[in-house]
């Protein structure tokens, strides 16, 4: 299959591209970021997915498959720009898919779609609406991109579209929201709260994306790895120290004294769990995660003496 991967230069994008080539697919990537030495068989076009050069890739390559990973998820990014990339980019990509005859499109979204809050249930299923957008407006572009991608199922019914709601990734690549949160030796936590965190090994996540493409998956699916683990266990098993701070104190301190500059809504994600049910995805694709929670945490931690 000829496959176009947007956001290919990201850590997960590279893993997906490498796997696709190894399985005999032809891969072209589009990303504003460079990938200097891609493996043989991977061609990278450095372009913005909303611009003409990106459309030209669709026109000349005529991909049969598409993996859309070009969404900005880190919250420190200026939000107006984020909004444009995440929504405008997703719209452009699906329009091109329709115009240039893509048969299978995979949108890689996030499980944070469901939102975290004191009254949300454990193990969300795909039918649930996003419940916490009001508490965390900074996530609204990702939620909207997810729903927009899902709407391709009825707008472009000839394209088999799958929307994957992927839980946090963790592993040796040390990229992503959870890895960024655990980057330092000291991890800020909210005093009196210890939520479950749901994560998947980066390699398992890449395998799941490839599987969705190859199995011609259609519909919205949660993707998770092993069962969730309390934040305190993650902090302990990755060799970090938690710094519990009262919630009232954390808000004014965000962005100061080395604490990340996060919107207040992000605190809900450190207080309450977002746990997803991936039964439907496993049933539809036969996906089985290869790395359990311990292997994933120790892969992220690395060898003793590795820089933290």
């Amino acid at each position, binding site marked *: 299959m000829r496959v176009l991967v947007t956001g290919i230069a990201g850590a997960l994008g590279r893993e997906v591209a490498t796997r696709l080539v190894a399985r005999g697919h032809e891969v072209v990537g589009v990303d504003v970021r460079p990938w200097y030495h891609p493996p043989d068989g991977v061609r990278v076009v450095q372009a913005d997915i909303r611009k003409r050069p990106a459309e030209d890739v669709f026109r000349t390559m005529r991909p049969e498959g598409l993996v859309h990973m070009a969404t900005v998820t880190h919250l420190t990014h200026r939000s107006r720009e984020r909004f444009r990339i995440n929504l405008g980019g997703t719209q452009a990509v699906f329009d091109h898919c329709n115009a240039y005859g893509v048969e299978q499109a995979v949108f890689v979204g996030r499980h944070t779609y469901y939102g975290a809050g004191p009254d949300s249930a*454990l193990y969300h299923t795909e039918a649930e609406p996003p419940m916490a957008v009001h508490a965390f407006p900074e996530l609204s572009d990702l939620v909207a991109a997810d729903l927009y991608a899902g709407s391709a199922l009825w707008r472009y019914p000839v394209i088999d579209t799958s929307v994957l709601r992927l839980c946090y990734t963790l592993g040796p690549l040390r990229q992503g929201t959870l890895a960024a949160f655990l980057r330092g030796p000291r991890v800020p936590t909210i005093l009196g709260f210890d939520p479950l965190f749901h994560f998947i090994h980066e390699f398992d996540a890449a395998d799941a994306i490839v599987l969705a493409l190859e199995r011609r998956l259609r519909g919205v699916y949660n993707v998770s790895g092993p069962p969730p683990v*309390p934040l305190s266990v993650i902090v302990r098993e990755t060799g970090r120290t938690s710094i519990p701070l009262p919630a009232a104190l954390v808000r004014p301190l965000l962005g100061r004294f080395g604490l990340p500059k996060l919107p207040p809504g992000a605190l809900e994600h450190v207080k309450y769990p977002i746990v997803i049910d991936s039964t439907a995805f496993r049933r539809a694709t036969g996906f089985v995660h290869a790395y359990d929670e311990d292997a994933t945490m120790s892969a992220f931690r690395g060898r003793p003496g590795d820089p933290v």
Partner: protein
Amino acid sequence: MIPASLIPLPTNADIARRVERIELPWNRHGVDPFGIDRAELARLYTLLGFFYHRYFDVKVYGAHNVPPRGRAMLVGNHSGGWALDAVMVIASAFFDLEPPRLAQGMAEKFMQRMPFLAWFTSRIGQFTGLPENAVRLLEEDRLVLVFPEGARGTAKLYRDRDSLVGFGTGFVRLALQTGAPIVPFAFVGGGEAIPTVVNLYKLGRMIGIPYVPVTPWGAAIPLPVTLQILYGAPIVLEGNPHDTDDVIIKHVDRVKARIAALIVQARELRDGKRREAELDLS
């Protein structure tokens, strides 16, 4: 409840061994897929063991009516100014059943908002009372504890201690949907332990809880009295979980009548008007 995660409460070795016998899918860290932590449970039951065996005089009848395995719902009345009844039923399911079972309550929403309480209740499997949570737990063949009176039930004053206020209908729909048998139970003595004279709702709202119960001695610290738990025979409901309320309410009334009859028996037993051999738990 005391946040055991913060205070290094002692763990009794025998109780920790008994916790190992609770049939839940623990991982290597002693945590189940819902985040229930075996070490926290051992701390909890060590603490509860003191109150259950020494502080209160807890008398349990009909524990054989609780299925040893598989999904089931314990459905009973609230008695006492706060959920002392839930705490004692959780203790009873652990100490009196063979093998021990974890009764998972359907808690009030405010508990997840309170620091430490949110932490502790999450680790001991007492989750917010959402239908999604209840369905999932029952489908995993767990024991779910429900008080259909809700917070209105704990707010009963001393004079109303053995009455029943309005029941919600959700538990019947859950039972019909999951095919879980309902084990009705009566809890009597909570009103004597915590005789509420007045509930302060405004103060409660200020600190983020439904209300603050006040007893003749001020704080709602329970007296060391006799508490009785009567488990009735399981009721298996049949019908459509999506029936209209007027159909569902008939099932609710059936369960409510059974609980009311159990309360009467517990009361008579307490007042010496009935002997244990004369109990009808069928």
